[in-house]
């Protein structure tokens, strides 16, 4: 697969040269919209605040953006906002730095909308565009200007690092056209198969795309097959291809061009959450149809004077359509219109320079000379926050259980069919000559797809091997609040279990449920326990968000005095297999007071 264009650009075109997968005329190509924050209001708030804070600088970096976004409480990290969020999100690994990733997400959206643009040859640092300044300074409703920017998105353009595309599409215009030609309703996957995968300059190709979607309709299996083939042809999994529709759908909805519409008309009898074009969407397309749609190839074919006039007209006419008073530039527009008369032929110009060409050409046409100020790119605020990294690492820590206590498995408790199944499986593996580590790995893999019905008894079996009398609830037993319980004479422990098919990594939700289990047990007294005894959350893998889960466990302890212990299957298998094979386990007392996440050292 060849990926043409910059990886960092928001719109990427993926091209697959596997001829066997060429099921569609141009199905191997799809605009790949990233999946950033899609809330219109948030986008506008963020650009306004960034402009207020960074406008005085010649240019700004992602770190500058991250700093402003965090300090203005427009992002959070690990439950914190402001400086604490900035500090906590700062890691050595840039891709794990949520403040920077947040800033990058906004930078990409704003660049796509033409509000910011690369200041130099590279993608960063950035500067605000003339259109971006208008969005940021708007006092009234910016929706009209926002819509103009949405219609301005077009491909190919010069804003990607390499420019080797030949495919052409003004996606949102093409999408509205497709809605109209497809009876006003489309399912999101039809967007992927349709306007996101078409060259809209070619009427033949457009018509064939519409015919192809019409042919899919009436049969959901046909649509699914086509969608899966598209994903395969892009060498992508279906979910990321589906995710590529999020941003266009959100932009279409934000502008009021489409609304959600549940219907079984397209793929009966299944009722699907589709999109329906609105009256405004139809009117907007009718207006777009009357306009001169200028793309980069044509723009580049004109001489410099004409190009400059087109740049000015493109920008001012966007603002005019968005309800701005263009009388101060009326004369300039008249002269430019006269100069471009043959190109425009009395039509309004649909051309957004900031979304199509590099800003140095625009600056020249608009007469914006860059006066160097004494405000270079701001120094990174993030660097100063590195002192906090240590504290974050600290809460990430996982406690190890050392397996150094002689322990005999309580075989008399292992009297259920599920217990016998597990022991037989271990015996088989031992018989095959596998060592402890191999057995643990094999079993861990074996249970990777276990459902509740298998996983709950397994956890109970493992605790019994460790010497805890453990009973599990059968799935569907709504009477019991916990999934299993260690039934102790004085210190019973409720266990919240998440099977790998429910969630691979133990989530915050499981931690909350473990707290609830403890409260219920203390309140209803169905088993005897003490407030200081732990409550367990057990799952296939330890939480992904370990720092956040650790903090939450601390919060619960600080507030309610409740200790939550988190154990994954690998640790339990390690202990149980060690007991079964070597007769060596861990200090059982540690379980009663467990707080936080643990692993086991054999």
């Amino acid at each position, binding site marked *: 697969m060849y990926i043409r264009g910059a990886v960092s650009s928001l719109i990427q075109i993926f091209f697959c040269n596997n001829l066997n997968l060429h099921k569609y005329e141009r199905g191997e190509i799809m605009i790949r919209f990233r999946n950033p*924050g899609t*809330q219109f*209001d*948030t986008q506008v*708030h963020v650009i306004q605040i960034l402009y207020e804070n960074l406008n005085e600088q010649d240019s700004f970096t992602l770190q500058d953006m991250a700093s402003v976004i965090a300090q203005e*409480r*427009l*992002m*959070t*990290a*690990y*439950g*914190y*906002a*402001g400086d*604490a*969020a900035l500090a906590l999100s700062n890691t050595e690994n840039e891709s794990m730095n949520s403040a920077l990733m947040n800033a990058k997400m906004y930078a990409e959206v704003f660049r796509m909308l033409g509000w910011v643009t690369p200041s130099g040859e590279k993608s960063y640092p950035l500067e605000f565009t*003339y259109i971006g*300044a*208008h969005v940021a*300074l*708007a*006092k*009234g*409703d910016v929706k009209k200007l926002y819509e103009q920017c949405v219609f301005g998105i077009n491909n190919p353009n010069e804003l990607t690092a390499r420019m080797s595309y030949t495919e052409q599409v003004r996606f949102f215009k093409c999408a509205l056209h497709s809605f109209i030609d497809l009876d006003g309703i489309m399912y999101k996957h039809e967007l992927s198969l349709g306007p996101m995968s078409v060259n809209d300059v070619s009427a033949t190709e457009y018509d064939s795309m519409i015919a192809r979607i019409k042919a899919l309709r009436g049969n959901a299996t046909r649509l699914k097959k086509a969608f899966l083939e598209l994903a395969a042809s892009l060498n992508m999994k279906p979910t990321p291809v589906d995710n590529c529709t999020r941003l266009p759908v959100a932009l279409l909805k934000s502008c009021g061009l489409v609304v*959600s519409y549940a219907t079984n008309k397209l793929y009966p009898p299944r009722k699907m959450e589709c999109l329906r074009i609105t009256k405004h969407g139809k009117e907007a397309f009718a207006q777009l149809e009357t306009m001169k749609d200028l793309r980069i190839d044509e723009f580049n074919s004109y001489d410099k004077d004409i190009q400059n006039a087109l740049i000015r007209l493109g920008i001012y006419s966007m*603002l005019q359509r968005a*309800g*701005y*008073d*263009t009388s*101060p*530039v009326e004369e300039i527009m008249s002269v430019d219109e006269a100069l471009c008369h043959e190109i425009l032929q009395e039509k309004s110009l649909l051309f957004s320079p900031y979304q199509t060409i590099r800003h140095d050409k625009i600056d020249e046409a*608009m007469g*914006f000379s860059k006066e160097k100020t004494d405000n270079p790119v701001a120094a990174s605020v993030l660097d100063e926050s590195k002192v906090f990294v240590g504290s974050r690492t600290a809460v990430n820590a996982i406690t190890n259980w050392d397996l150094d206590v002689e322990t005999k498995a309580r075989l008399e408790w292992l009297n259920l069919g599920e217990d016998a199944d597990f022991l037989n499986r271990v015996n088989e593996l031992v018989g095959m000559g596998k060592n402890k580590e191999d057995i643990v790995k094999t079993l861990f893999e074996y249970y990777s797809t276990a459902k509740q019905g298998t996983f709950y008894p397994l956890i109970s079996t493992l605790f019994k091997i460790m010497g805890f009398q453990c009973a599990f609830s059968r799935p569907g037993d*709504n009477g019991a*609040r916990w999934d299993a319980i260690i039934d102790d004479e004085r210190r019973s422990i409720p266990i919240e279990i998440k099977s790998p098919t429910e969630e691979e990594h133990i989530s*915050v*939700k499981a931690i*909350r*449920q473990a*707290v*609830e289990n403890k*409260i*219920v047990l*203390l*309140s*209803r007294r169905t088993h005897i326990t003490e407030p200081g005894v732990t409550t367990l959350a057990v799952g296939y893998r330890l939480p992904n968000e370990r720092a*956040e889960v650790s903090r*939450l466990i*601390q*919060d*619960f302890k*600080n*507030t*309610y005095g409740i200790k939550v212990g988190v154990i994954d299957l690998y640790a339990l298998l390690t202990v149980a297999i060690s007991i079964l094979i070597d007769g060596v386990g861990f200090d059982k007392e540690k379980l009663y007071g467990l707080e936080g996440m643990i692993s086991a050292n054999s």
Partner: protein
Amino acid sequence: MQILNEKIKRTSIRFVNELPNEIIVRPGMPAVLQFETHNMCGSCLKCDTPSCIYLDSDVIKCEKVKEFPEDRDNRVCPVGAISWNEKLEAPVIDDSKCIHCGLCARQCPVGAIYYGEDRINICYDADGYEEEPYSSSTICQQKKFINEIRNKKRTGCFTPKNDHVLEELYRRIQSSCLLPEKFVRNIMVGLGCKCATRRVGDVYVRMDAIYNTPNGTFGAIEVEFGADTLSAARGILDDIAVLHSRYQIDKHHNTALVVCLSLPNLRQGYWQVVKDIAVVENIKINTLTCGAMLVLIG
């Protein structure tokens, strides 16, 4: 770089030169503004900043937790049914979107928005209002009038509280695409509270919202419009813990609130868990439906 101005398509603005003693809200018709000597009907003021469309940014913040990263979308209508009409120079309501919650009516300073004939209406043309050219001085005059009239006594009720009205409200809520958290925030504001919701998609903020009443009561809010009310109870425990541990808000000074569409049924186990929490932690979790809150608004 010359920044162009947005075109201002406003020619006139309205206010009254004297203040009424009381505003009496009525079902089926605009409110009555009672003066010493006469009465007037509530009629659209064509507000410079229409409070039926936008909430004041101060009321969607909660000072008790200054670091709270609140959503800054200050639109009143949870479904975007009310908008500014440039031709009319006044707000208009799209009944096909409107859920009949009356939040816009609650914000109108003169009670020009009313519920009648199974829809929300706006009165535009009652007598007695000064219609003045739109200018900075008339904007100031209007602002002064609005600020003062907001302190006047307001009585009466917006809709007759019967099953039909509530059934229609719930039918519309359930078929709309409103964001429950913002809807609840705006109801809380309608009740005179300050209320901040977390931004849509911000998974790092634990609580759905926090609020402050005018007398200083503070609490976390969990919103659950579906059937998973147990997760709301767990969520509240989480919220209280985070606020207690990270923001120094004592768990016993947190009047936590779960807002549901309908009260949970007994089988869901919600009430028993709420009772367990009260027994073990001495924390009371309050539960309200949005319908009840709207009834409280009037």
